[in-house]
């Protein structure tokens, strides 16, 4: 049986948790979103923003306080989780108290699938995920978290669910296991063409997996778009900061008296007539945003560009991060993969390419330009 491709749609979903003491937490606040069928969608957001709550509502483990859930055009809001054909992998890997093999075979046995088919499917998935065939008879209870999570993933995909929900499946794993499982997940999800929602608060994970991402904060979807657009054109300061490693730099600016340039801390940013026309509607205070990897470091030491002092050099992976102090208490981070002969304390000259600069409203945080 091939999985049916199901489109998952939330309509004005609000979820409020009420604790025993009567305390209320609004975990989801009027969320409407459509997850396209057969594709992987990423859901990103800081801890506590309601990601797990959203998945549980889709799975049927929670009834939303308000709003509706549709699978294609079918209203499933009141449908039991047993009847939704949704598979979910949780943040903390869980495995049943039985052998590794039985764990993976379990969902098929429950459905009365013939033994030989079960065996074929289990072995297929075991091989895809790189689970050692020799440990299939060991009890899964004592397995390490990496293996337990592989088992959980295997169990989720073995039964051809219509919707696959992955709730931070890699967060609690060791770095090496994480990279391995990430690669496997990518292979599997691309091959399977199953509607997949991948939740994480680690953006590096999702940027490589998902075509579209939804960025959430405090129970709301802030931006939902193609991954590259979210990255290039963050709708809100928060998105720019949250997506990217490190996130976008923000420099406070104000429009000068003549309304011709933005006076920023440490430099001036020239504006054309059209830009000014748009900006004046929003007042005088803005934030200029630029991604660390878009900043150009001027090695010729020419006179143009913004001058600053390197206060810190960091390495993340193969990249270098230069913390450049361009004014008092204003530091921007430039990211480069090139080895340049500069050290802490040196003076550096950087330029901000015009096509990569975004301007945000200081009051609301929303992007104005471009």
């Amino acid at each position, binding site marked *: 049986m091939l999985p049916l491709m199901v489109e998952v749609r939330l309509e004005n979903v609000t979820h409020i948790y009420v604790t025993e003491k009567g305390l209320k937490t609004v975990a989801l606040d009027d969320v409407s979103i459509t997850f396209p069928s057969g594709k992987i969608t990423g859901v990103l957001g800081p801890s506590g923003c309601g990601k797990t709550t959203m998945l549980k509502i889709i799975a049927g483990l929670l009834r939303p306080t308000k709003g509706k859930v549709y699978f294609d055009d079918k209203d499933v809001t009141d449908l039991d989780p047993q009847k939704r054909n949704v598979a*979910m992998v949780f943040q903390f890997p869980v495995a049943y108290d039985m052998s590794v093999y039985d764990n993976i075979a379990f969902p098929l046995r429950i459905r009365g699938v013939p033994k030989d088919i079960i065996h074929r499917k289990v072995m297929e998935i075991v091989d895809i995920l790189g689970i050692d065939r020799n440990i299939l008879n060991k009890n899964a209870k004592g397995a390490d978290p990496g293996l337990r999570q592989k088992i959980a993933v295997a169990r989720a995909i073995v039964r051809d669910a219509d919707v696959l929900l992955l709730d931070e499946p890699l967060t609690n794993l060791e770095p090496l296991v994480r990279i391995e499982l990430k690669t496997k997940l990518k292979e599997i999800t691309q091959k399977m063409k199953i509607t997949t929602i991948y939740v994480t608060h680690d953006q590096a994970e999702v940027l490589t997996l998902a075509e579209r991402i939804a960025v959430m904060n405090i129970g709301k979807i802030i931006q939902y778009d193609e991954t590259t657009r979210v990255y290039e054109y963050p709708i809100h300061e928060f998105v720019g900061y949250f997506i990217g490693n490190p996130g976008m730099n923000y420099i406070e600016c104000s429009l000068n008296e003549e309304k011709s340039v933005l006076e920023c801390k440490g430099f001036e940013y020239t504006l054309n007539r059209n830009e000014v026309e748009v900006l004046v509607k929003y007042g005088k205070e803005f934030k200029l945003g630029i991604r660390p990897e878009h900043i150009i470091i001027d090695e010729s030491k020419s006179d143009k560009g913004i001058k600053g002092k390197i206060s810190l050099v960091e390495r993340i992976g193969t990249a270098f991060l230069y913390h450049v102090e361009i004014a008092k208490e204003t530091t921007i981070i430039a990211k480069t993969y090139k080895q340049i002969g500069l050290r802490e304390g040196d003076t550096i000259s950087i330029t901000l390419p015009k096509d990569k600069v975004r301007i945000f409203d200081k009051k609301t945080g929303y992007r104005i330009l471009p």
Partner: protein
Amino acid sequence: MRMKTIINIVIIAIIALITLFPLYWLIITSLKSYTEIYANPPYLYPPNPTLQYYIEALYKFYGLKYLTNSLVIAVTNAAISTLASLLAAYAVSRFNFRGKDNLFFTFVSMRMAPPAIFAVAYYYIFCRTLGLRDNILALIILYNVFNIPIAIWLLLSALEAIPKDLDAVAQLEGLSHFKILFRIHVPIIKGTVAVSYLLTFLNAFNEYLFASFITSTEARTITTALQGMITVAGVYWSQMAALGVLSALPGIIIAVIARRYLVTGLTMGMV
């Protein structure tokens, strides 16, 4: 360091002696004749060991019948109370319902009063209303009253330790609550289930008070039978001791076999 181990061994030996000596005395008494028992100075061992008194206890004094009664009651009651408690503990652990917190307190608080104060009520309920006087069914039902709270208390804390995400996965895989409990949870907490069964079994097997006034001849249990051996014609010490040994056996066997389980199961229950 050396001194400490020696002291430890001495203390353990004293404790062992204190607990085991009565048992030893019971065993040798069951192997001694009436005159040997009253010999002065007393024999510290049976001079002419014989199993005669066991045979008499089992057949002449109906020990076999009483032992069977006790076993049937304990086996059945432990099964019922463990099963019922498993369902109850699952409900308390996994569902939200009104009065959930008070329910548990009710169970526990019932254990705080001395059981004897319920005796009259139980006598009335079982013997008069239900007509189960001298019927083992009465005890099988009655023992649930104190066995279920103990079993719930044990099983609940074990179930609480199972992550709720595991249930969620199982639910999504299509399992009903019954299947989640019996196919997913029970294998995980089988140790505690076993402890719960053994403890409730022992409770039922060793119970004396209620058995003594609800049963008389047919449904008589082994604990109450012992008392029946003090007759106007005299006390049959040897036979009584033999029956005593037999009635102590299940407890001893369980303690030996399930020693490890009991300790882990009990400490798990304590949180």
